[in-house]
């Protein structure tokens, strides 16, 4: 029934199926056509669908999203690609002041059904090209923010995002496009909410999303070898945020480690930790640990970059810390 495909192919399938289903769905973004996408997600799309539906744009992020907003109000279903989340900052005004507001402030008279596909990631790309901003968007009421980790979620979420009448920030990750995973045959949609327990465990809960989920799973496997059973939760959707699933898990494991690639200050981890202490304070047997980036702009040099971005070892160390296994644990 299910097949193994890559995250990138899952995205392609979602785009194709929705474009085939609905003429109003069209793609717009820098280098998505002739160049086939900076992360080649839209390979072959220009030939297949033509320039009307696969629109290469100027380097005008603000106007790309602004036009998408207007086109969506006018009855279209734009799927915008912003090359990386770093460049989404140039479109922040259209995303935050416009897309997220129009439905509400006009008393529900308009909808803005846009999808903004963009990518987080790093890899010696330096200070301006290595940032992780999902928390910034998750801060804003009116936006839906999804950050799928697996091919199955990538496809199901993207299809649902395109059909959603709300503006959706759909955040991919440059380092997981080649990851493979099971994807159902045939059409399916996934609701744009809900975290998922991906590994059951009794000793500690590790929460993450996107690439961080793979770190968490890696750490859990390593910990299992020393007899520590970690429950791993993939948050999947960052707004609306499903903290209930985390709370239920913490009620069972009594310990929580949150793994995020971004800076911890005012990040997703802070929000999740706050929710857990509100709803499960009495269940906690140790302070909640957050594993995140060192709070510096990203350095280029490989050895420094490695110090900034958390790896599996830091996750393992944090788990030992909340289990008081290794009092000298790093971080």
């Amino acid at each position, binding site marked *: 029934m299910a097949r193994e495909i890559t995250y990138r192919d899952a995205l392609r399938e979602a785009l194709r199926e929705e474009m085939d289903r609905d003429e109003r769905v069209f793609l717009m973004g820098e280098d998505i056509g002739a*160049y*086939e996408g900076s992360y080649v997600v839209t390979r072959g799309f220009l030939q297949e669908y033509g320039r009307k539906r696969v629109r290469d744009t*100027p380097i005008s992020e603000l106007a790309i999203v602004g036009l998408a907003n207007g086109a969506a109000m006018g009855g279209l279903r734009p799927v915008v690609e912003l090359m990386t989340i*770093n*460049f989404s900052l*140039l479109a922040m005004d259209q995303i935050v002041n416009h897309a997220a507001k129009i439905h509400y402030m006009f008393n529900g008279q308009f909808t803005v059904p846009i999808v903004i596909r963009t990518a987080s990631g790093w890899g010696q790309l330096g200070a301006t090209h290595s940032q992780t901003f999902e928390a910034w968007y998750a801060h804003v009421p009116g936006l839906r923010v999804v950050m799928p980790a697996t091919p199955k979620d990538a496809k199901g979420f993207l299809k649902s995002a395109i059909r959603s009448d709300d503006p959706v920030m759909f955040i991919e990750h440059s380092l997981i496009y080649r990851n493979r995973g099971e994807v159902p045959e045939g059409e399916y949609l996934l609701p744009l909410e809900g975290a998922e327990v991906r590994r059951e465990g009794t000793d500690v809960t590790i929460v993450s999303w996107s690439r961080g989920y793979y770190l968490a799973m890696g750490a859990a496997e390593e910990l299992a070898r020393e007899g520590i059973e970690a429950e791993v939760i993939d948050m999947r959707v960052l707004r609306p945020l499903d903290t209930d699933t985390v709370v239920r898990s913490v009620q069972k494991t009594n310990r929580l480690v949150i793994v995020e690639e971004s800076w911890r200050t005012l990040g997703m981890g802070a929000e999740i930790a706050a929710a857990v202490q509100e709803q499960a304070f009495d269940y906690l047997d140790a302070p909640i640990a957050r594993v995140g980036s060192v709070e510096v702009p990203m350095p280029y040099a490989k050895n*420094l970059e490695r110090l900034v971005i958390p790896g599996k070892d830091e996750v393992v160390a944090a788990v030992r810390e909340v289990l008081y296994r290794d009092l000298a644990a790093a971080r």
Partner: protein
Amino acid sequence: MTSPDGSRTKDLTLGKDDLLHLYRQMVAIRKFEERAAEQYAHGKIGGFLHLYIGEEAIAVGAIDAMEDRDHVVTHYRDHGYAIALGTDPRRLMAELFGRSTGVAGGRGGSMHFADPEHNFWGGYAIVAGHLPIATGLALASQYLEQNYVVLCFFGDGATNNGAFHESLNFASLWKLPVLFICENNQYGMGTAVEYASAVREMAKKAIAYDIPAERIDGQDVLEVREAVKKALDHCRAGNGPFFLEALTYRFRGHSMADPEAYRTKEEVEEWRREDPILRFRGKLLAEGVATEDELNAIDSEVDAQMEEAVRFADESPVPDPSTLTDYVYTEPVAVR
């Protein structure tokens, strides 16, 4: 387009030393970039690497026309300007290698480094993000009456961004001493100008802001030099900004990861015949300014210099981990 015999190159009004200096500078950039590409392939350089091969005449001609007090601000395709400004290629290569001896200590990499000692005020990797910065630097010049001009380089693609238009308007409105130099290499990544810009001549965009503008041959180092000299005089005299559009072409992909599906081999070949170095070389030979031997000797000297740059970079230490949090703030602040 004609073959690179130099026949369309501007007349030689400079002395031999100056001409050979221009030649050497262009060759230095070319060979630096070739070594960088090779080292990227060897895994010594990571991330995004954008080469300036094919466009050397613009940086070299423009920077030769500058005065010592003038400043350069540019985008991420930035090695060439630094070399033309006199940045030590060893320290530049070390930056690309991410080593502590690099011009930015290995923190910035290819896309983000600066060398203010040599008037290089930075390469910036957000397209068009540096235009307001260049314009602001010009504001400082005007305000402090320092009479320097800012040379701001950017691509055709950048002219479609709001930051470009807002900067040009400011520069013209406040008569700021900034020279905008658009390197129109026909593409922004894989998107041809015709698919990105309603106006095919970038110079026209400046005219909309009442900024005098000119379109020049970016493959002719002498034409660039002359045009930039005149433009700098205009800016320095307090007449406000000037805009040059230099027509050019990048011979390599946008970055090292570019399969170049968006352009034909024939088109690239045609432009390779407009190689700025070969054209200038042809001119120098045709006019009897230098012999083949003299030019070959320069090539070999530069080769050795770039070989040394790679060796230096490779032998340099990586940054000390204890420096990770330096420069987040200007004074020590606890960083987690």
